Structure formats: C-alpha cells, structure tokens
C-alpha cells in the first residue's frame, strides 16, 4: 500500500466572511498516526475536510505525496474518510457498503468479493456481511465504516471524531483497535478529536489547533512537557500558571511571583513571565521550609488514586494532586499549608 506524506502550506479557508483557517502549515510523515486536537470551533474538522476535499476550496497548497490536491474533487483524491456519524448507507447491506468503493473503481467482481471478505476479516465482522447497517451496534458500525474506507487502499486515512458516538468503555477498546489496524496497514492517518486522552494514547504526533491556527506540533509527551504557549499548557492536562519573574543570584536561579513568593529553579525550559506547574509536581506540607510558599486549602476532591486540592496561594488558585495513601490523614478545608513545587524541568512562558 502506498504511503504518502501530507504537506500543508499556508492554508487559509473562510465560510463566507468567517475565517476558519488562518494560515496553516504542517507536515505529516508517511505512515504516521497524527492527531488534530483542539476545542470545538478551532478549525480541526475544517482542516480535515479540506484535505478530503469537502467544504469551500481553501487558499494555499495541500500536497498528498507529490500532488497538490487543492481544487480537486473528493473522488479524484484517493483519500479515505471515516465520518463521525459513520455514514453507512442504510439501504445497502454491510457487504454492499464495503464493496461500494471497489465497484466505483470497476474492480472485477471476483476480486472485489475476495477483498471484501479480507477486509471484513480484518475488522472481525465477516459474520455480519449480510446485515443491514441499522442491525449493527455502534462499535460494529464503526468497524464497518472503517472497513469500507480502507478497502480502497487510500493514500491517507482521515478519521473525524471516530469515537465520539461510542460509550466510554467501547471507546478505549476501539482506539486500541484503530491503532492496531493503523500499524498493521501502515496507513498515514489523521485523527480529529477534542479529547486529549484519545490523542495522547493513539498518536505519534499531534497538532493542537485554536482559532484556526496551529498552536504547536509534536509528540504527545513533548507537548505536555514543553507547551509552546499558555493555550497548549492549559489545553493538555491541568496547568497552574504563576505570574512573576526570574531572578538570578550567583549560581542560583529563582522565580519570584507577583506576591513575592519564591520558587527555586534548578533548571528551566524557555523564558518568560509565567511558570507552568503541573498538579502532580507540587506537594503539600504542614510545616514551612526553604522554597515553600504558604497557602490555604479551599476545596478537596477524592479521585481514587489521588486527592485533588484547590489551594489559594501565590495570588492564584492552585490545583495540587497528592497520591492517595490509605490511613493517611487529609488536609481539611480552610487549613493553612505550605506548598513545595518540584521545578526541575519547569516551563517558563
């Protein structure tokens, strides 16, 4: 199967007067599992649809392999798309749905039949070939929609929120299955989602979009550990942002907040006036010591493996996660506590 990379160059797109994509540049490598992550209205689905050839014609270039597809009709692109609603045709059996693309390509019947069986085996639903789509469960419909798309061996597989119509348990199972299939077929795949956990668990790399602009591109871990801006820091996981400035005193570097509290900074990434602290990198203690700052417990939530505290400190409301240990006593609301931040590798923005 031909693996193609995708190159998106300076793509602008508007719906009437509303600008939805404002200059997108992106390169997706052949065989990569890539995620578009962003809140609703960020332009992620629009970008996906532009690659597939749906919606208004964008300005700029979209290269699939070597070919610029902007202005090409969807049917001349060899791009496979799985829709959020699955879009299985209700008047055709599962077999006819899956065989559709082959028929459009005038594949000889015998050959088509064999490929339909193969692909149905691949998704594990060969026994449902004669069913109608409305007789399938959500997960089964999802797999058939996938089978219908991959059977035509597209250069690129596009998945538009493919898991959003499934219930929670099935979602986890399906995303593993998706990943397994993608690895097996080696298809260049783009996955659109607003769920960071989905993007984190499946993708090799991802792009975070907001306001029609790509905020950052990288592996899930890179994006979490080294967010390029406050939006990415906040969108991926929970982030505590403290305003202040860096002070250097000989060998020692410190971050002094606007309220005058100080944090030691053994090593930092980036520069700026905000420090990003993840909830699990802060500990709460009863007594004051060097590099701690004082706060008051506002609220407490028991999450099972962790206890999440909301603490007012350093001029902000700080989220702190503590591992839950049985028999360990909790900090009560209103208690005065001292926070110590583990700032190794902290990000300044």
């Amino acid at each position: 199967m031909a693996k193609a990379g995708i190159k998106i160059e300076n793509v602008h797109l508007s719906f009437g007067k509303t600008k939805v994509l404002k200059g997108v540049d992106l390169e997706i490598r052949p065989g990569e599992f890539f995620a578009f992550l962003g809140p609703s209205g960020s332009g992620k689905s629009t970008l996906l649809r532009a690659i597939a050839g749906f919606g208004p014609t964008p300005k700029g270039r979209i290269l699939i392999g070597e070919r610029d597809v902007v202005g090409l009709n969807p049917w001349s692109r060899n791009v496979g798309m799985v829709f959020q609603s699955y879009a299985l045709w209700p008047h055709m059996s599962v077999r006819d749905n899956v065989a559709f693309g082959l028929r459009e390509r005038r594949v000889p019947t015998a050959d088509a039949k064999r490929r339909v069986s193969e692909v149905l085996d691949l998704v594990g639903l060969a026994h449902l070939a004669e069913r109608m789509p409305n007789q399938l469960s959500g997960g089964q419909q999802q797999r058939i929609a996938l089978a219908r798309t991959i059977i035509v061996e597209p250069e690129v597989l596009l998945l538009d929120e493919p898991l959003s119509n499934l219930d929670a348990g099935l979602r986890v199972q399906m995303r593993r299955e998706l990943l397994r299939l993608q690895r097996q077929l080696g298809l260049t795949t783009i996955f659109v989602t607003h769920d960071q956990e989905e993007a984190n668990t499946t993708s090799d790399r991802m792009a975070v979009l907001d306001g029609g602009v790509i905020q950052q591109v990288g592996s899930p871990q890179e994006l979490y550990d080294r967010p390029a801006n406050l939006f990415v820091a906040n969108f991926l996981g929970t982030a505590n942002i403290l305003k202040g400035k860096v002070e250097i005193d000989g060998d020692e570097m410190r971050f002094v907040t606007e309220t005058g509290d100080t944090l030691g900074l053994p090593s930092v990434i980036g520069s700026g006036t905000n420090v990003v602290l993840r909830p699990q990198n802060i500990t709460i203690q009863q007594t004051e010591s060097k590099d701690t700052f004082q706060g008051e417990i506002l609220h407490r939530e028991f999450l099972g493996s962790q206890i999440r505290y909301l603490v007012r400190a350093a001029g902000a409301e700080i989220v702190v996660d503590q591992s839950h240990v049985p028999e360990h006593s909790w900090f009560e609301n209103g208690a005065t506590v001292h926070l110590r931040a583990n700032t190794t590798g902290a990000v300044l923005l």
Partner: protein
Amino acid sequence: MTTTPSHETGSALAGRLQNTFIPRLSNLHVVAVLIALLLFGLLVVPVTQVIFVAFQDPATGAATLQNFADFFATSLFRESFWNSFYVSAMSVVVATVIALPLAYITTRFNFSGSILIQSLGFIPLIMPPFVGAVAMQLIFGRNGTINLLLRDHVGISIPFMDGLNGVILVQSIHYFPFILINLSASLRNIDRSMEEAAQSLGSYGLRLFQRIVFPLAMPGYIAGAALVFIKVFDDLGTPLLLNVNNMLAPQAFLRISSIGISDPMGYVISCILVVFSILSLWASFLVMRGKDYATVQKGGGGMAKRDLKPAEKTLAYGVVIFILLVVLSPHIGLLLLSFGTIWSFAPLPDGYTVENYLTMWEGSKTFIFNTVLYAGIAATLDVIIGTAIAYIVIRTGIVGRKWLDYLATAALAVPGVVLGIGYLRTFHGVDVPFTDESLASWWVIIALALMIRRLPYALRACTAALQQVSLALEEAAESLGATKRRTIQKIVVPLMTGGILAGFVTSFATAAVELSATIMLVSSNNDAPLAYGIYLFMQTPSGRGAGAALGIVAVIVVAIGTVASQIIIERDKKLKESGD
C-alpha cells in the same frame, strides 16, 4: 422491603395501587370505549354495509358474485375502470415531472428562488381541484387562451383538456405538492456525510445520485406518489365538473343519484375503490417498511448545497417560473373568471366587473354559513377525538389501544364517495329523534362525514404534538401531587395546544372544500356547503362567474387556514425550543 414488608407498607402499597391505577384507567377506558363505538358506527358499519351490498343479490339478499360479473360484463364499467387506472397512473407521472425538478433544485442548490417554490409550490393544495377545473378549461381548453393563441400564431392546437387529458392535467397540477413535500423532506433528511462518504470513495454525478441519493429519497417519493394515486383514483369532483363521466367515482355517483341506492353497481364500484386505496397504501407501506432513512445527525445539516453558475441559475429560474406559471394557472384563471364579464372564445375576459361577487354573495350566504358550521363541528370533534386517541395510544396501556389508532387512520383508505354511499345506505331507514326526517338526509350527518374524513389528519397532528411533550413533564406534575386528570388538563393539553390548533385549522380548511362525500349527502340546497355551491354555480355558463367568485372565497378560506396553522406550528416550535 422485599424481605418482610410490614403491614403498613403493604396496605399503603395496595391503597396507592387503587388510587392511581383504577380511577386513572377507568375514566380513560370509558373515553376509549366511546370513541370506539363512534368509529364503529360512523366508519366500520357504513363501509361494511357497502361491501356487503356489493356481494348481495339485490332481489333476494343472497350472497353472490353476480354483481361483479355484471360489472365486468358492461363495457362502460370496464372502460371506466381502465380510465380511472390510466388517469391515476398518468397523474403520478405528470406530478413527478413537475415535482422532481422543484425538489431537486431547492434541496441541492443555494437558489434564491427556493422560497418562491416553497411558498407557491403548495398553493395548489389550498384549492379544491374541481374549482380550478373550470378555469383550466378556459386557459388550456380547446377554445381556451393557450390554444387560441397557438392557433392564431402557430396554426396548431394541443388537446390539453380533452377528455381524460383534462382530468390528468388538473389532478397532477393539484396533487403534485404531495410528491414535492415528501420528496423534499426525504432529500433534506439525507445527511451530507452519506454523500461525502460516497464521493471520497470515488462516486460522483449521476452515479452518485442513482446509487445513493435517489435510493435514500425513495421512501419519501413512494409515499407521495401513492398518495397522489389514491387521491386521483377516488376523486369525484374533478371528472364530474369536466364532464368526464366514464371513470369509476363519477359512475358510482351517477348510478346512486339517478337509479337509487338499491342499484348494486354503485356498491361494486365502491368496493373496487376501497380495494385500490388499501392496495396502494399497503404497497407504500411495504416499500417503506424498515426504511427510515432519515439520516441527519446531530449538527448535520442535510445535503451539501452548492452555488449555481450564472447559466445554471438562468436555467433554474426558467424551469421554476415555467412550472409555477402552469401550477398557478387555475388560480389565475379563476381570478380572471371571477372578475370577468364574459369569457368565451377569447384569450381573456371581455371586460372586468365586481358583479360576480355581488351575485355570489346574494346566492350563497347559506352555503358559506353551512360550510362554517359543518367544518367547525367536524374540526372541533376531530381534535377532541384526536387528542384522546393520541393520549390513549401513547400514554396508557389500555388493551387494544392501537386499534383505535388503526381504526381512525383507516378512514384514509375510504374514498369520500364510498363513505357517502355507506351513510345513505346505513342511515336512510333511521329517523332523527322527534322529527320525520331520515338520518341520512339530516344536515348533521354531513358534518359527521367530514369529521370521519378529516380525523386521520387531526390524529396525526395531535399524536405529533403529544410526542413532543416529554413524559418527564407529566411525571413531574404527578410527583407534585397532581392527579392524572389534572395533569392532562394543566400540563399535557396546554403543551399540545399548538399541535391541536394546527390540526384544527387544517381539518377545518380542508373540510370546508370537501366535495366527494358531501355531494352524496346533501339532500336540499339549503343544507349545501360551499363546495356543493360552487358545483351548482358551475353547472350553468351564466353562473360560472359567481361560481368562480365563490371559488376565490374557498381559496381564501383555505389559504388563511394554512398560513395560520403554519404560524401556529412555527411559534409552538420556538416556544418548545426556548423551553429546552
């Protein structure tokens, strides 16, 4: 509680069971039984009677197939049968030719004329077809506007209105909106991803339409086409006014009105009409079964519309304007006729006057009064019974409740002529209490016939309205201590008001112009409603102007009704949305 229920909880439970179940169900049971009796007496008995008589020897009363043998042995009846079939089938074809481009253009393109189509396209329905028939003669007839112009300038004439052609033209112009409405709705209900999925798999253009779009729209088309077929097959007024008597419904009417209610041929024809109605409903049911193709998803917006290129736009406007002109020709003709002095052998009337309206007003006050009275009674009863049936079917577990729905809906399959004949036969021997009058010729029976004829529509409106009232709203009232009866009064009915009103208005407006059943039942001109009045006026050339004026009144009545019900439905929808 499952282990050892104490005495107290046990008896409390029993008390609650008694309090809630028994009174709640018993009241509704009574209502259900009353409605069942009413439907039985006014629908089942008359129709069964008609079928019975068709299989009876008129002299001895013994069961026989002789009547059917006689029917098919008579060449006039065989001809009428084929004519009815041919006219219905051709009307479906012509109506499709009119509706398909309109539906396609409005749903597929960003076309500014769509609003024009959506509003003007439904105008035919607000005019009873027989009203337009006379006006159509004047425009499309052998000596009508179009043919006079063609003869003068091109030297040809086209027999648009000759014989069966006339019926086909009038009926398809009148009934094509059924196909347009249903087809547009199914086209709109196709989610755009259905099409996009096919496109990204390599399908486009005509193949895409043929393999994906049309099959998905098929159920809507079949529903509309079946409806057109039945309506045309059953219609009495149009052929009668166009003086085409060699069709089934006119034959039934003529046999009964000229030979009398003992002549078996009218009943045989009724049987055939009923069988065909049921067959076409059944056929459309078979096609529709298991095919709810409404695929629009949350946030999906129907099919992707695209902009038209300038040349395409011109073409689209051309097609739409041409079709709309044809479709509106009965209205234009009727308007001209109503204001015209003399209109004969001329493209347009000789002069214009309001004389016709004055004559009409003089001659038809009773008609108008009767219409308001009959249609008012019919529509009021329709929504009351409709609401009750809807509630019983959707919200209770009363045994056999579905049958109330089936029974009321079955009226759809009973042609007006058949119901009329059935009433004549069943009630002619029954006297109205305290009078010497027969029930069959009492004016109330006309209102009741209209009520039965419109009940299926009112029932649909009420059912739809009730389905939109969430059960939780009722449960909330009940958990706050309201009894079933109070809940229905204070919560359910007020929330259904919009739907009920819409049902009332539609029933009223369409009952006001019904002719098929009433023409059989009107025993004196004093009891006649508006539609019958138009029919009377149109019988003489000198009365045509006044008849047209009365026709305009009918159109206005129905138009106001339709617009009102639309406004009510829209307002209601907004109210419900804001409540979410």
